């Protein structure tokens, strides 16, 4: 009996370590040439003007971490630090939505000086969300004096769609955008123990977007 429980736990752990399949599609649209000088930095900000959703701060942080790592890394100013330093110009209600608004903002000497102090080359606006659909199945768990366990099956689909628009702070123009569409089906079978086979959809979108963004800004993604 003890041996069979160990086997079930072992199989569960092995299966749980196997991620479900995820597919990611990335599109890039370039409007102008880009490059970044040594010592220049960028900031990646989440769009939070939508009524139905907010771009997840954790996703923005994840993209920032991808861009800030590796041999071709770029210095990324943390989003919250930037929002606090530039307060109140990048709040959901006041943030520039178009580059024309950015030009207006640059007319405020305090804001212009703070951006210059940061050595900021580009502002990247990330907009999007992850939606869950097609959820089906049922899992029942019970506990009795003799023991407990779960039985059933659950599945769902996650779809992450994000777009990153890049603004050049020298020209005060948009230089292009990168969009990513990542989706995957997750499964949760339960035979005594639930075995999560989770599609890492958002992680895949983050990694793809971050790597492409780095290439785009350094000028290698032409």
């Amino acid at each position, binding site marked *: 009996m003890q041996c069979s429980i160990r086997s079930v736990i072992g199989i569960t752990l092995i299966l749980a370590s196997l991620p479900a399949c995820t597919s990611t599609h990335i599109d890039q649209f370039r409007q102008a040439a880009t490059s970044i000088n040594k010592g220049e930095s960028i900031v990646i900000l989440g769009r939070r003007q939508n009524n139905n959703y907010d771009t997840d701060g954790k996703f923005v942080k994840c993209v920032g971490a991808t861009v800030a790592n590796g041999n071709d890394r770029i210095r990324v100013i943390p989003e919250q630090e930037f929002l606090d330093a530039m307060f*109140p110009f990048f709040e959901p209600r006041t943030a520039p939505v178009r580059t024309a608004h950015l030009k207006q903002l640059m007319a405020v000497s305090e804001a212009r000086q703070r951006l210059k102090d940061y050595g900021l080359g580009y502002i990247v606006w990330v907009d999007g969300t992850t939606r869950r659909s097609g959820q089906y199945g049922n899992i029942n768990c019970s506990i009795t004096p003799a023991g407990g366990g779960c039985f059933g099956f659950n599945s769902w689909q996650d779809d992450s769609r994000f777009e990153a628009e890049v603004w050049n702070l020298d020209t005060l123009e948009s230089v292009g955008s990168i969009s990513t569409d990542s989706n995957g089906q997750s499964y949760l079978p339960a035979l005594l123990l639930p075995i999560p086979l989770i599609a890492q959809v958002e992680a895949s979108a983050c990694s793809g977007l971050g790597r492409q963004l780095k290439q785009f800004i350094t000028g290698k993604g032409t």
Partner: protein
Amino acid sequence: MLRANNSMYIPRLLAFCLVLLALTGCATSTIVLNGTYPAPLVRKIPLTLGVYYPPELRNYAFTETDAETGDKQYLLQIGASQLKLFNTLLPALFDKVVLLDSVQPMPGTGAIDAVFIPAIAEFQLGLPHKTRMQVYEIWMKYDLKLSKTNGEQIADWVMTAYGKAPQESLQLVDSGVQNAAMVAMRDLAASLTLGFAEVPAVKAWLQAGHRNAVTQGYGE
């Protein structure tokens, strides 16, 4: 002997836990709003502003009740966070800020150009389990007054603030409400910073008597 003691203990312990759980389920949870706010990045308006916080603002609290049972579910203590917000915001907006104990400054307070009196007129809370949306929401309506030191009114205007924060898995209600409140109060601070000198009555007063007071409007 030990077994006999345990068998007596366990049912009592279970009963105690059930009573405790029932009481906890019925009790009102108190959430004290707190947070830190950044000082705005703007040129100071060259005015000495007196600020009076009415007791209604200092002690402002909101009770969220269950629509079906009428039970009080959450008590939000908001007053202290409001004072913290205004005490960060106003000194960054004006050359000098003087806290007042009454609407009209006492003799010897010093030269004050105007008295600012903020108040919360309305507060709304949106909880995910009630709205069926995966966000915590807070909406506030402020009644803001600016008057001369003799009590004569300069301006009386309304400002709204809105904040939402996504619901996260295994997140406590307290944390979700705090996050939404932080966004809402930053929203108010942003609106007041960029909009104070643009309120028509305030603008007229500034232009009439305080031409040196620089307007801080977006893009100016």
